[in-house]
């Protein structure tokens, strides 16, 4: 009896203390990223960039006086792990916001979970576009930003016959649909289209199919370590065609991993890569290298992950709260921007996507990079024009050019 009374007194003393501690509690940022498995190569720089942004923010006093606490789980390039760990972040850790995700398959695996829990989620990665979801904010570039710049430029320079090879899952399928749409709009022809399962690493037949179709250039939308074998194999077979892509170089730095000239004449439109030589980029690289001197490559997704944390900070400061609805409303009110590695970028209130600086990166014979063109402040225009307006109307869908929002 005495014991119980003591316990009760103890509780009575502790409870108010723990409440006051909670007021100054850190903001809990949950991170789901593939630190191991097939995608780890492209994802590890994202994890480091997120850590860098959090460290910088905490060193300057945090957000609203509260430090950010990172809770990172390794999702092992496995979609079921994504689901399991997303639930854990929401239910057990009760995080204020969730970041991360690399492959579109993993994002689609956890999006319903985020929606069910009304969990604020930042997908800090380039993808195939079209996600119009009240709970999801995207800081990566999308096809309307990357292809509407790249494809017409390549068609002008090399010709109008296009062949697409793409990874056979939602990312590759929808990206290929975008290429098809933009090629057609610009008066070109698709002379071939091939979807490759993620487990394929041998491309002999694909290379012959391309040679038979005689395209002017090849769009490669290949994902994962196995598929990247295409580049060395096409060079060995002397395919010798210009290539275009939204993801190569910027994500998995193939131009650093393959011996020249495997990626000769590859054109990519990332929103950032390490080779970008601007004051903002150089400053970012200096801070990044100071913390992670051995990073093989500071990629496009590293910049997107870094910007995402600062976008969240700006939104929380505007909302003066980490309440998820308040943060969402703050972004939907407009004017949430950050000055990151690619310069100033802003969130679009309608579609929850971000504006980007788009760099046209050309891989030369020796695998060095030149930038023949830079497009400033390219807006994620398509979803808004198609009728997605999250500030006015809640939605939880992914749209494509052939499946736009119903008006």
């Amino acid at each position, binding site marked *: 009896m005495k014991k119980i009374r003591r316990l009760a007194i103890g509780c009575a003393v502790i409870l108010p203390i723990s409440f006051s501690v909670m007021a100054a509690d850190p903001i809990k940022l949950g991170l789901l990223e593939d630190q*191991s*498995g*097939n995608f*780890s*190569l492209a994802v*590890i720089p994202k994890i480091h960039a997120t850590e860098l942004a959090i460290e910088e923010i905490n060193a300057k006093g945090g957000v609203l006086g509260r430090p950010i606490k990172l809770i990172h789980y390794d999702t092992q390039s496995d979609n079921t792990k994504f689901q399991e760990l997303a639930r854990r972040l929401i239910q057990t850790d009760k995080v204020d916001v969730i970041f991360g995700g690399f492959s579109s398959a993993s994002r689609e695996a956890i999006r319903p979970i985020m929606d069910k829990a009304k969990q604020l989620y930042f997908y800090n990665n380039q993808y195939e576009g079209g996600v119009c979801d009240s709970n999801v904010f995207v800081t990566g570039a999308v096809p309307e930003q990357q292809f509407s710049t790249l494809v017409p430029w390549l068609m002008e320079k090399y010709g109008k016959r296009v062949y697409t090879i793409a990874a*056979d899952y939602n990312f590759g399928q929808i990206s290929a649909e975008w290429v098809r749409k933009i090629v057609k709009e610009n008066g070109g022809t698709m002379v071939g289209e*091939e*979807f*490759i*399962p993620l*487990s*394929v*690493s*041998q491309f*002999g*037949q*694909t290379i*012959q199919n391309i*040679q*038979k179709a*005689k395209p002017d250039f090849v769009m490669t939308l290949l994902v994962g*370590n*196995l598929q*990247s*074998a295409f580049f*060395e*194999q096409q*060079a*060995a*077979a*002397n*395919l*010798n065609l210009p290539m275009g892509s939204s993801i190569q170089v910027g994500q998995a730095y193939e131009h*650093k*991993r*393959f*011996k020249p000239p*495997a990626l000769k004449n590859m054109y990519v439109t990332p929103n950032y890569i390490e080779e970008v030589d601007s004051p903002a980029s150089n400053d970012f690289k200096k801070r990044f290298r100071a913390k992670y001197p*051995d990073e*093989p490559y500071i990629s496009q997704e590293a910049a997107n992950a870094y910007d995402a944390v600062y976008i969240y900070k700006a939104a929380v400061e505007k909302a003066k709260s980490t309440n998820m609805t308040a943060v969402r409303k703050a972004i939907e009110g407009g004017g949430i921007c950050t000055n990151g590695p690619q310069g100033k970028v802003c969130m679009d209130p309608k579609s929850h996507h971000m504006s980007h600086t788009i760099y046209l990166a050309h891989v030369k014979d020796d695998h060095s990079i030149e930038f023949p063109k830079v497009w400033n402040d390219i807006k994620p225009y398509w979803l808004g024009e198609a009728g997605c307006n999250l500030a006015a109307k809640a939605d939880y869908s992914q749209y494509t050019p052939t499946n736009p929002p119903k008006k």
Partner: protein
Amino acid sequence: MGCFNLILLESSGMTIVTTVYSFLYQFGDSFAYLALSALGLAVIFGMMGVINLAHGEFAMCGAYVTILTAKAGLPLPLAMMTGSLAAAGAGAILEFLIVRHLYNRLFDSIVATWAVSLITQQTMLIFAGPSIEGLSTPFHSFELGIYSFSTYRALLPFFAIAVLAALYLLFFRTNYGIYARATIQNAQMAKCLGLRTSRIYSFTFALGAGLAGLAGALYAPTITAVPTMGSSFIVPAFVTVVTGGANVLLGVLPAAGILGLIQSSLTAVLGQLAGQIGLLLTVILMIRLLPMGVGNLFNRR
């Protein structure tokens, strides 16, 4: 008119040659990849009854050592030999530390070698980084009609056949081969006759690991060097061994031939996805119709 016909004939003749060669090239490419991937697994499974799920990691070891030694200045053929030997060495160590204690415990050996595979991948990721820069494919390319082909890849099927021939000689023309076959047939009896069966087992496991390493070494210039690269060998290896059955030579050769034919024709007509589905469907059919594998058809009973 006659002249026109001749040109037409000539060009169509050329097209036929090109089409036939391009089909043979694709078939050979498929065959070589299946056969070379499978040999190491087939030796270890066929001779010892161990299902080695760390097979892919031996291939990775072969590829990494090949790339690193070639970059250090070793000529490519020597670098590839070093890669295979390194994998064989790793196999001998694994056999001594783990596999030796799990003979006749099929399921335990599966779990243990799977664990070795996961641990190796993650250790490589942590210590060697997510990737290393690869090599360029040796030799140049040659052209035929509208196609151009990689000379190196055109040679790989012949190399695969040479390796099979060497294995045949090893198992049927050397003392080790006789001892090894005796041990498989009846380990107890072999022991009674004075054979040191444990040594034969170690050597055989190292041989299988070395063959996996050779596959990794030969394909090192053509694929990406990453810690998970073993997974690109493990599926073709298992598919071929399941189709071929436990018999190393009589299994792998026809299995890789049949599967290569199915895969390359399906890929040519319907694309990569159909090729992959075709491979797996064939395996399902084989398990249903010939559960002991193609190789068993050739066994004299």
